[in-house]
């Protein structure tokens, strides 16, 4: 018998670590008997293995490549507590109604992750596995973070409750609008749109994702003009108003400089884009917390990896990461507007952002129970192709803790921007009043709006212009489970 060191080759440990290639499942990344610990980070992937690749082996490969494995056996594993550090695929089940696709549940030991770092978390979970050859496609559907890990993050810089207290606005969704056209306006003309919209009745106006510092309007000029507009609107209404000043820039140094200028001018809020990256987002969240500023995040770029159901990262996972990272506002869909959004799926995103605790809710795409351990909530933002005529649907689907952003629905109003803002505010307040009075706004919505329009000509004009506009296209990102499912995990 051949001897390896001082043991025989029949020794199981020696056999396991003999140089060569093993299946991932045989390397210890598949364990159907594993019971996830309360302290484990859990992930659920939708996997589409190549023809002939066993689903359990594919799941094990994902677990391996997102934790400790490489393609071949390495003896240096034996210098570590490698059993503990190996992620374990512990459950694989076929996706209902989708032949060739499987849901793979994987558990990761807490010590695999640096405390309080979304960059480190994502480097493991999505760092290496998405181009893996034995898989045709891979999608990260959901994650569960143990309380011990959640507590290493500061969470939203402000949070929904404190945001409302600072703004002194309760009991209704907030109203916003993005300045249009989003590119090309001079600073003076841009601030005009802000002033008209805010004094007409909106709470917020917003820079768009790609307004930074361009030849037609440099950032300081935008900030100065917008803050003149915000302060004028506050004086004529007696309300707190805000404009999301987008501080997205090429470097952190530039972003800090712009954010500090926004603060010095008295802005209550600054804005960043998702494309700046997770580390930059966490840095800005820390800055916002330190400087008493609300932090708005525009999810620029997310559609490249969230929309298709078979490959990428579900937006519910991005939403969870952003709650850990610490933003206060996040665009999360409208359901009724012009952008992708199945009602159940979008409500799932909203629940992830706002609730202190998420139960398993397969119908809304939530596969794991999540305790947010006192972490503040993010205000979801509904933006894109919505108008006053949909107010009853928006309030029913999205609830009170949301920012409804009517860009075209304010600026495109036939009587002007200010009238457009007034129409939205009156429609909203009338709908909240009616709901609180116990009326069935889902059915009576159009009648409630017509009644309110009797004392508000701008609302009448808005309903006449857009009342019939709908965006009725099938969603691509839909739940896999129909009502009354059994709980997974």
């Amino acid at each position, binding site marked *: 018998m051949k001897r390896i060191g001082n043991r025989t080759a029949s020794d199981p440990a020696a056999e396991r670590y003999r140089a060569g290639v093993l299946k991932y499942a045989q390397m210890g990344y598949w364990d159907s008997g594993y019971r996830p610990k309360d302290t484990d980070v859990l992930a659920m992937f939708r996997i589409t293995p190549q023809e002939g690749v066993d689903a359990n082996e594919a799941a094990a490969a994902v677990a391996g490549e997102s934790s400790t494995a490489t393609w071949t056996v390495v003896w240096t594993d034996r210098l570590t507590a490698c059993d503990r550090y190996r992620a374990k695929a512990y459950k694989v089940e076929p996706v209902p109604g989708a032949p060739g696709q499987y849901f793979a549940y994987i558990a990761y030991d807490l010590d695999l992750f640096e405390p309080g770092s979304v960059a480190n978390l994502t480097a493991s979970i999505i760092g290496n596995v998405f181009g893996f050859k034995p898989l045709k496609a891979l999608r990260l559907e959901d994650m569960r973070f143990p309380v011990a890990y959640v507590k290493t993050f500061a969470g939203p810089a402000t949070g929904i409750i404190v945001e409302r*207290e600072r703004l002194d606005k*309760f*009991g209704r969704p907030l109203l916003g609008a993005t300045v249009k056209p989003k590119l090309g306006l001079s600073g003076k003309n841009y601030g005009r749109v802000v002033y008209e919209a805010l004094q007409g*009745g909106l709470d917020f106006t917003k820079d768009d994702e790609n307004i930074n510092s361009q030849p037609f309007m440099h950032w300081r000029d935008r900030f*100065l003009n917008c803050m003149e507009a915000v302060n004028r609107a506050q004086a*004529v209404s007696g309300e707190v108003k805000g404009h999301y000043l987008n501080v997205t820039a090429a470097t952190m140094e530039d972003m800090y400089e712009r954010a500090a200028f926004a603060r010095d001018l*008295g802005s209550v809020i600054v804005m960043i884009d998702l494309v700046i990256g997770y580390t930059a987002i966490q840095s800005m969240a820390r800055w916002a917390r330190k400087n008493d500023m609300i932090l708005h995040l525009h999810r620029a770029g997310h559609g490249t990896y969230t929309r298709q159901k078979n490959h990428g990262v579900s937006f519910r996972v991005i939403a969870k990461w952003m709650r850990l990272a610490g933003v206060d506002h996040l665009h999360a869909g409208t359901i009724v507007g012009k952008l992708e959004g199945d009602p159940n799926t979008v409500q799932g995103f909203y629940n992830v952002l706002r609730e202190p605790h998420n139960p398993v809710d397969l119908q809304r795409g939530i596969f794991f129970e999540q305790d947010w351990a006192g972490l503040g909530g993010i205000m979801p933002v509904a933006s894109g192709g919505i108008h006053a005529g949909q107010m009853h649907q928006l309030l029913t689907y999205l609830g009170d803790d949301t920012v409804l952003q009517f860009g075209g629905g304010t600026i495109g109003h036939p009587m002007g921007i200010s009238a457009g803002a007034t129409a939205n505010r009156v429609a909203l*307040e009338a709908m909240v009043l009616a709901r609180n009075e*116990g009326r069935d706004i889902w059915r009576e919505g159009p009648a409630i709006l017509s009644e309110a329009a009797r004392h508000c000509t701008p609302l009448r004009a808005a309903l006449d212009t857009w009342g019939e506009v709908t965006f009725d296209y099938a969603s691509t990102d839909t739940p896999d489970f129909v009502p009354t499912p059994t709980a997974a995990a």
Partner: protein
Amino acid sequence: MRLTQGTFSFLPDLTDAQISSQIEYCLQRGWAVSVEHTEDPHPRNTYWEMYGNPMFDLKDAAGIMREVDECRRTFPNRYIKVNAFDSTRGIESLRLSFIVARPQEEPGFELLREEGPGREVRYSMRSYATRRPEGHRY
């Protein structure tokens, strides 16, 4: 001007029946209702004068309406609002806050600009009413 703080300021002034049904909505959810008044409507004036403590133990909209009414009679020319507090863990804050009475004339706010270096401006807002001492503003 019309001060548009509060949940329903863009609607015509609420009738007593409308106020009462909003209070009813709050009571059904277990929220504690309170009444506050002020002569200083600056948006950063978080602390309006309390017309008594929040009515934690009063579960009857008619009873709360009597408090609202008494406050309106005591201060016939001030801003008065009704608040609802939710003590649920994770909220522990206001859930609804709306104006139920306002002065006959609302003079509004002056915007003050202090020009700084470059084009920087420091803004502040001042209610025209608060130039006069408390008790003589409206």
